[in-house]
């Protein structure tokens, strides 16, 4: 989560904060829909968000440049929507609680943990996954460098690692080693590819 910008933090509702607030939200929406409060509500009351669920709801996304629509329960995470509904299984779920960054995708060009983002909160957003990083047959320089420097071993952290590193180069074209370490400080790799990931990312930056 460290590689989210503060702007992004405000926009994206994490699953944890969603769940924390769920009790209150549900109670008030139930009250609203039952009409208990409606007679008191002034006409100028702020517009409340639509009530979603518990059944499937439509979420429209632009994924890797394609307009997509998925029908999912509101509790569905963006990672689940991508993997189970759009069959984009490059994005991996490892810790399922925002501590390993294997599920990193770009939401409106900023890296986020897709396991901590509800699909409904990504409605109308632009999502880039590891499958959409290359430009057609031309790999992203970070992908090229990962191959050249052997930065992928079992490869399970690699999609998240690649998205974090490519995300870094988007916001900092000339990073140093500490910048790369900071950008990947949330990415867990149990095989221990870190030294090669650092090398590859610095080499990719030079090529770009």
């Amino acid at each position, binding site marked *: 989560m460290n590689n989210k910008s503060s702007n992004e933090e405000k926009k994206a509702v994490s699953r944890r904060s969603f769940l924390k607030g769920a009790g209150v939200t549900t109670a008030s929406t139930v009250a609203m829909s039952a009409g208990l409060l409606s007679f008191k509500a002034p006409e100028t009351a702020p517009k409340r968000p639509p009530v979603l669920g518990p059944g499937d709801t439509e979420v429209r996304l632009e994924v890797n440049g394609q307009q997509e629509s998925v029908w999912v*329960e509101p*509790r569905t995470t963006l990672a689940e929507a991508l*993997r*189970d509904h759009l*069959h*984009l*299984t*490059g*994005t*991996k*779920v*490892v*810790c*399922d*609680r925002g*501590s*390993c960054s*294997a599920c990193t995708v770009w939401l409106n060009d900023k890296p986020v943990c897709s396991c901590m983002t509800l699909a409904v909160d990504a409605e109308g957003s632009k999502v880039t*996954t*590891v*499958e959409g*990083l*290359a430009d057609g047959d031309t*790999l992203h320089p970070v*992908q090229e460098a*990962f*191959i*050249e420097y*052997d930065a*992928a*071993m*079992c*490869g*399970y*952290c*690699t*999609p998240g690692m*690649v998205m974090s590193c490519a995300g870094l180069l988007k916001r900092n074209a000339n990073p140093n080693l500490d910048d*790369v*370490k*900071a950008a*990947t*400080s*949330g*990415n*867990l*790799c*149990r*095989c*221990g*590819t*870190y*030294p*090669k*990931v*650092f090398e590859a990312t610095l080499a990719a930056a030079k090529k770009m």
Partner: protein
Amino acid sequence: MADINKKKIVLPLAPNEEFGSVKHLNTKKIKLPHGIPGHNLTEIEREVSADEPPALAVNDQLSVVGKRTKRIDAIYKVTGAAKYTSDIQLPGMLYGKFLRSPHPHAKIKSIDVSAAERHRGVHAVHILSVEPGGAVQRDNGHDAPAETYHVDKLPVLRYVGQPIAGVAAISDKVAREAVQLIKVEYETLPFVVDLDEAMKKGAPLVFEEKVEQQQTGGDVGGEAGAGQQGNLRGPSIGSFYGGPRGDVDQGFNESDIVVEGEFRTQVQTHCALETHGIVADWQTNMLTIYASTQSTKSVRNDLAELFDLPLSKVRVITEYMGGGFGAKFGAGHFGVMAVVLSKKSGHPVKLMLDRKEEQTTAGNRPNSQQMLKIGVKKDGTLQAIDLTSYGTAGIGLGAGVGRVAQDMYTCSNFRMAQYDVFTHAGPGAAFRAPGNVQGCFALEQLIDEIAEKLNLDPLAYRDKIDQSEIRKVERKKGAEKFGWKRKQPGSDSGVVKKGIGVAQGHWPRIIHVDSSATVRINKGGSVEIMSGVQDIGTGTKTILAQVVAEELGLKAEDITVKIGDTTYPDGPGSGGSVTAGSITPAARNAAYQAKMQLLGQVAGGWQVEIADLDMEKGEIFAKSDTSKRMSFVDATKKMRTNQIMATASRPDDYGGFEVGNAIGYDRLGSVQFAEVSVDTETGVIKVDRVVAAHSCGRPLNPLQIESQINGGVIMGVGYALYEDRIMDKETGYMVNANLDQYKLPYSKEIPHIENIIIEQYGAHSSTDASGIGEPANVATAAAIANAVYNAIGVRIYELPMTPDKVLAALQVI
């Protein structure tokens, strides 16, 4: 079809009755490189089967093998195209989910699954009576296990998280809901999760009767038929390198200096990024399995046995897998459950463990308490080594640690007593150099203590007592790269103190002769290699391509590698650093035999002798007449059949084995150097730099070997400083069953790592390669511990070396 519930678990109670060494109809003598280039390289003659290919030259005379070669499947990993077991989606596939024990020790009085069965979207429910993976109680006085798969028998629950029942439903969420609808009445029983508590008299017993356990990959200490008293099982007094030696008491009497210490290491969890899991598709004619496994054949064999199917009717596929580190062998409780649920429901069932299940139920490195005592003469000669160790693998076996102390240094008087201690916790499993990592932490610290007492440099002392030629070279080259200069312990002034340390590692050279591969040359020039062996992230696909390409005079990228499927000839399991040394000779031999078939046809066409032909740089040519030349592709177009194919298996080591059919001569030695900074106010240790000097026989692909060494070092840093499974003594729960409270090294904890890979030829096989996975991990924690001592002048005897332990050692708290 036998009923799964009636099937007995077969345990390896009888000694292995395989045939011993193999005789050949025709043999030939070949001269092979032997020794370390630049040090003692020479040639040695071996008598080998006439089918063997000619000797492979040393690496600098080759064009593909030994060269830094890009991982051939990396492109699929960096683009997200690689499909792992967790990514498999089949038509009609259901999702499996477990009900697991909420108690560390309990009996099930009743279980009612009817509400779960009625839950909308649920297709099957099954109750598991015995968990594969842990030790199994045997009938008192008999060898046969008492606990079998009986449908009417409910399991005794022995740890929090033990599987009880499974549900298959249309989605993961529905399966979770259904699990919550299973009603169980428990009778809770007293339990113990702490090593010391479990050893006390009157401690709650984990098993009432004697137990046995099937070994998986490279486990130690769980030998069949060992004694058992209370929660203690053992002692195990030997390893495959033999038993006690000499007279230890007399050895100590004759010693001038005796050092001893009690060392403790923690429980470490594997934390593979992809959890254990399987997709099972039970069809009438075939059981198809997608498994995240280190051994496709072990999954197939387990399931065939448990479900009474012929081996030919079970197919296991592992195209990509997200890390194993020793814990992923066999079908596992999840695999058995997925197959039962698939059979019951008539649908494919996917059962991937969630992270919490992975951390609590899918294996761990047992902890250890080691009492190690070493006696030496004034000149430093080792006189006696005595080791007693206790460790818990929870409800499982395999906590032995003694092989390093037994085998790394020459000492004529040696004994050990290794005990497994049962606790009410998840079963241990093989974990990257099982036993040796724990053992090395103790042994290499005591060796340092002796060096200090003798006023010798730790490297100079090891030069004196270590007979290993490869480690001698590693010490020398490592010291040069590291800039080793002896430093007085605790001599830095200031708050942050720097220290340097060195430690040595040891791992046996293990070969699985049950390793085969097929090489197929197709019309048009495409070449395939096929084997059941799997690539667990180590780069097996790439080294196979390299070996075949070298033999056929092609490039690695010209070879299509099809592995991880039991449809192909059996490969080795990938554990214990056996893979490279086991499968690459089979691959080269198959390529050589296919090549001979093709050359036979060319020789017929050109009217020359086969021996006059060779392949190089994509061409076939006659050595005696260079005008006779044809591209490989063109030659294949003239083949009389569409394909040429050859299958070969791993022959015995050329010089035979040291022990049985698996333990080769030579060891995989390593020497690692560490530099640390210790903040004496906060107690925080930072590893700044590691130099890792390693050998793995003939290095096949230095690029990938570097990655493996980095990985071993980083895992060692985690083991030394951060990782620790914390059990709550009051509830029996693991309190940090996740990837944030279980502390792991991330990018900011990574030291600067430099590798030294030393070529070492042993003339053992047609490739003479060995693995590097385990060796990379053995010495790191010990090297860091020695560096910490060098920094602060106080030794730390317990892992992980967290700030509290540093401050306590400094007597600050």
